[in-house]
């Protein structure tokens, strides 16, 4: 019997990377301008937040590096601008560009971590609701309905005012706003998948429910989540910015892009526009890139749109 074992030659099989470049997915990606643009923006942002702090001249939150004499310098191309601060400085002499680099890092990390948490919580609850059904299902989905009937910023505001502010509280607020989309999507797919005979076959094989869920249902409900998760990072960056702008977001020692806008907002109408306009443009660019990417993934991964 051992002699009949197939010889799977590693050399004959194209590598994973090679197969990816030959795939239909990659082919469509190459021809889709907005997808390329979106992923380029996202990639540049990722590069900026990882490598940026080593490149910019100043750590804007190290007080020793700040020079109050350099406060409110305009961008380099305006009169009075300095080539040291390309996008100008704020009231404490912080380089706006350096603040944006550091702020983007916080915004992106919050967006990604909160997305991961919401995805984990929502997927788990959705699987439980869809698989077991009955009262558990009704209970989970009614909570989801209630959650959805509040504007997400309002829910987050309420939670922040109840638990106080801070990075961890922002994450909790975002997760408790964001899990609903996953729970609903996953529950729907789970209901559909558990009707299929392969789940019954797994039961006949003697698999316990937990393993049926993990081995059979979960891998088959994940694809639509990729789209939701991508778009949600953008949404979370925006919600976090709104919260920070309203003063219930991240602490001033860990400023996100939203907090930067708020800091510059007070002087916006005295002509010192660059302090908050540039962080705003960067938020816009980031969310725009994420959404372009998400739209492409949605078209690509949804078989009904093909």
């Amino acid at each position: 019997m051992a002699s009949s074992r197939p010889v799977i030659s590693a050399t004959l099989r194209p590598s994973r990377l090679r197969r990816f470049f030959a795939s239909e997915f990659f082919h469509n990606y190459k021809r889709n301008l907005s997808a390329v643009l979106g992923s380029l923006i996202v990639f540049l942002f990722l590069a900026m937040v990882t490598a940026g702090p080593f490149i910019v001249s100043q750590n804007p939150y190290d007080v020793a590096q700040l020079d109050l004499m350099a406060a409110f310098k305009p961008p380099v191309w305006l009169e009075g601008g300095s080539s040291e601060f390309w996008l100008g400085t704020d009231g404490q002499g912080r380089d706006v560009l350096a603040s944006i680099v550091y702020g983007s890092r916080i915004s992106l990390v919050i967006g990604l971590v909160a997305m991961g948490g919401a995805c984990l919580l929502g997927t788990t609850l959705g699987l439980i609701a869809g698989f077991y059904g009955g009262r558990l299902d009704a209970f989970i989905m009614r909570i989801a309905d209630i959650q959805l009937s509040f504007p997400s910023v309002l829910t987050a505001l309420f939670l922040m005012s109840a638990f106080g502010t801070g990075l961890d509280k922002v994450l909790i607020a975002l997760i408790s706003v964001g899990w609903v989309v996953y729970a609903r999507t996953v529950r729907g797919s789970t209901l559909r998948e558990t009707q299929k005979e392969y789940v019954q076959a797994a039961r006949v094989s003697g698999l316990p429910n937990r393993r049926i869920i993990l081995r059979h249902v979960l891998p088959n409900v994940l694809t639509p989540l990729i789209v939701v998760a991508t778009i949600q990072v953008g949404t979370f960056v925006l919600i976090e910015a709104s919260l920070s702008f309203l003063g219930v977001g991240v602490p001033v020692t860990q400023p996100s892009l939203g907090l930067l806008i708020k800091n510059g907002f007070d002087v916006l109408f005295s002509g010192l526009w660059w302090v908050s306009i540039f962080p705003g443009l960067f938020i816009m660019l980031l969310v725009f890139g994420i959404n372009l990417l998400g739209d492409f993934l949605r078209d690509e991964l949804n078989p009904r749109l093909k």
Partner: protein
Amino acid sequence: MNGVKTAENAPLLEVRDLEQRFDVSGSLIDRLRFSGGRVSAPRRIVHAVNGVSLSIRRGEVLGIVGESGCGKSTLAKTIVKLNEPTAGQILIDGEDITHHDFTQMRPVRRKMQMIFQDPYASLNPRQKVRDIIMEPYLESQGGSVPDRTERALALLEKVGLGTEHLDRYPHQFSGGQRQRIGIARSLSVQPDLIIADEPVSALDVSIQAQILNLLMDLKDEFGFSYLFITHDLSVVRHISDRIGVMYLGFMVETGPTGTIFSAPKHPYTRALLAAAPQLGTKLGPATEQLGGEVPSAIDLPRGCPFRQRCPLAFARCAEERPVLVPVGGGQSVACHLHEPAIAEPAA
């Protein structure tokens, strides 16, 4: 054959008066009815399987035929405990498994496996063939990776698939090949009984014959039994030792395959056989062709379930539900016309 053999002629599977009902009434709000100034909340119960008894000996093939919706698939799924039976008994090797819970069922699952109808829905699209076919084995025996690989390769060979398919995914196969994978999965624990729920009805006719022959060859080689569910009379004739005919969740006639086809007793069996097209023969006389619709399984008719469509129904059929009684030669019929006590019906 694995396991300890019980008494030689004890049936491998015995089902006694099995009932399977489903409550489809939904929530209280859905159930509310307003009529004549009164509020009521009636329940809607589907009577899918009604008091079915059957037994299968080792190495025997029992075919169950009936129209779509007659409860034959539900019967199969209840026997493997995919449904919780409402009433009755299921015995495997003399062991009553009717109320076995999950852990108690584990050893039983090694004796009893199932082949499913839809070769597209019955294989997990995200699993490799090796994981699909070894899943029952992995769950019951475990085994090391090389052990499972070896067994998987042997199984693929047994069902006529090349060993190069081991690491492929279901979408790379045709319907017939997928059904072979499903068959390999059911064989992995070397069961004594395989419950095949319409295993060929989703396949092309040319493929059907191949799969049926494979099923017969495997049975001859391993000596297991089949409970073979189908709506196709030619299939059931080809494969079964005995046949059970179901109508509206009732077993209306059972007997050896030859007897059922040559001397059917129940009017429904006769109509079913007459309706099957055969080469070289004309359709049966018009009296054997059925009119009307199958009654709803929610409101079962009083008396005989078949009486509204039966050309031979008489007064007693509306009063009393006939039970399956032996009429000799291993044949049993649930029909008032064939009860020994009233061999001569009125009129």
